[in-house]
């Protein structure tokens, strides 16, 4: 008997050991980023990135707080784009998903297929790019960061449609309509309040997509005044690349922030996600698991 218990304890200890190793592997790289942002610049240049730097320093953050109007601006743009994009996106998604979930809507299969087909086939970057720039003229406008691709996608629509069909009893809608409530009243006052879990899950996923997006800025922006945080980080990164392959011109070197400042900008960029993540963690996990069940 005690052998059996011992065997179990050993089994639990070994799986915990493996998982702790994997957990450390997930976290330590981020820790390296944070530590380098607090490392003295000279130490960083001489000794390289290290988990145990010889000398710490707050210079990078001091510099950021005093100097960087660019960073504040980029931060503001990211916040604005994320807020506007997430709210509009959530509204569009749920307003499209709700009719598709109604069993009494005879054309729902046709429209569901129209939505679904966009997941199977797409025209790719070239036609999209030419349309957005040539026809809608969004190059170097704030809309470039909000509208293309991120606002709504078929996957979220179908996710939400499934939630509505599985969780909202049709009798509830019938009863409300008997009482004389119109479509919009039913939707906004009954359906949405009952669907907070899915709204939170999808909203969070849209929000993360906006916060982390750099591709729209890469395609459609050349004006640095409109750069989001990720675009700013991206430009600094490409300048480093430029420096390491070309003969250094004085101008680029002076424009390039020092290593610790770059790391500090990256830390500031991921901070909101790090801080909010523990609170929203269960919605993420839920989003992944409902997404994997047939859509």
């Amino acid at each position, binding site marked *: 008997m005690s052998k059996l218990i011992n065997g179990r304890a050993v089994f639990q200890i070994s799986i915990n050991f*493996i998982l702790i190793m994997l*957990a450390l592997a997930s976290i330590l790289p981020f820790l390296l980023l944070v530590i380098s942002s607090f490392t003295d610049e000279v130490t960083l240049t001489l000794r390289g990135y290290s988990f145990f730097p010889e000398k710490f320093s707050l210079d990078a953050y001091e510099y950021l707080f005093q100097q960087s109007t660019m960073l504040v601006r980029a931060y503001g743009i990211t916040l604005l784009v994320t807020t506007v994009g997430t709210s509009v996106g959530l509204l569009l998604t749920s307003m499209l998903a709700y009719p598709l979930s109604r069993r009494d809507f005879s054309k729902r299969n046709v429209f569901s297929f129209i939505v679904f087909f966009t997941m*199977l086939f797409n025209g790719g970057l070239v036609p999209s790019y030419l*349309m957005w720039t040539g026809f809608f003229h969004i190059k170097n406008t704030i809309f470039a960061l909000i509208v293309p691709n991120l606002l709504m996608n078929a996957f979220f629509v179908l996710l939400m449609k499934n939630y509505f069909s599985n969780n909202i009893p049709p009798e509830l809608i019938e009863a409300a309509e008997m009482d004389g409530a119109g479509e919009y009243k039913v939707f906004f006052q009954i359906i949405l309040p009952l669907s907070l879990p899915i709204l939170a899950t999808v909203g969070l996923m849209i929000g993360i997509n906006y916060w982390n997006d750099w591709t729209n800025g890469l395609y459609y922006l050349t004006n640095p005044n409109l750069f989001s945080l990720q675009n700013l980080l991206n430009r600094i990164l490409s300048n480093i690349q430029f420096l390491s392959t070309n003969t250094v011109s004085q101008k680029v070197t002076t424009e390039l922030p020092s290593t610790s400042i770059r790391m500090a900008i*990256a830390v500031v960029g991921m901070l909101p996600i790090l801080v909010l*993540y523990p609170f929203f963690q269960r919605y993420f996990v839920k989003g992944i698991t409902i997404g994997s069940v047939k859509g």
Partner: protein
Amino acid sequence: MYMMMLPGLLYLLINNYIPMTGLFIAFKSTDYSKGIFHSDWAGFENFKYLFSTSDAWVITRNTILYNATFIILGTLLGVTVGILLSELSRKFLSRFYQTVLLLPQLMSIIIIAYIAYAFLSVDTGLINKSILPLFGIDPISWYMEASYWPFILTFIYLWKGLGYSCIIYLASILGIDKSLYESAEIDGAGKWRQIVSITLPMLKPTIITLVLMAIGTIFYADFGLFYQIPMNSGALYNTTNVIDTYVYRGLLQMNDIGMASAAGAYQSVVGFMLILLANFIVRKVDKDNALF
């Protein structure tokens, strides 16, 4: 009803359906002075040109080989860690590990490129400065040596995607009927035996479906991973250029619309056929898990 759906449908029309019709651009010899619609038709010239270069072969090979590696290793790792998580006797530990493992997935690929640079930078990177000297190995110019990149990119992909895939498999394992394990226990089956005889067979449909669906998108690469992590370094193109990065560079860095649109159309059409094929196979194997 229709009014309510209108904004969303309009968005899909503009964002998704209109670009689909734009595939015709690949058959034009685009001339900006005439505009896209009035440019001359080029027939299959753009495609002929694309496939006459070695690029077409390199990007196709890279896209497929990387994705195939990602599918195989990613599934193995995801299933293994999913099983480990499900075997934990304390549930709060399982939740804690899930939270931590998912973290890399939430960060933008740019932040991850910064981290990769902190490890790989030639004169200040952790590997060259702190790890290689321990073994007496000379510093390596990571961003100049193409041969290391299949390993680096695969490693980063697995590191980033582990949390996501293990949670999917864990959810599927938690859906398995508990009484199966109880009766196995009574029959004296050990943990290993239970995993091999119950968990894995019950996971099989999920694994098959996810793998087939991944094969359906094997022609699409993760643009961020292949563009940002190698820092767009030209010396690495042989092992880092995939269809997605090729289309982007063709369009915005070299301004070669014909080439970029031909590669894009090639990806769209072959990708579409692969998705249909994968779905067809899923339907044969397990009808309930087919996409449509």
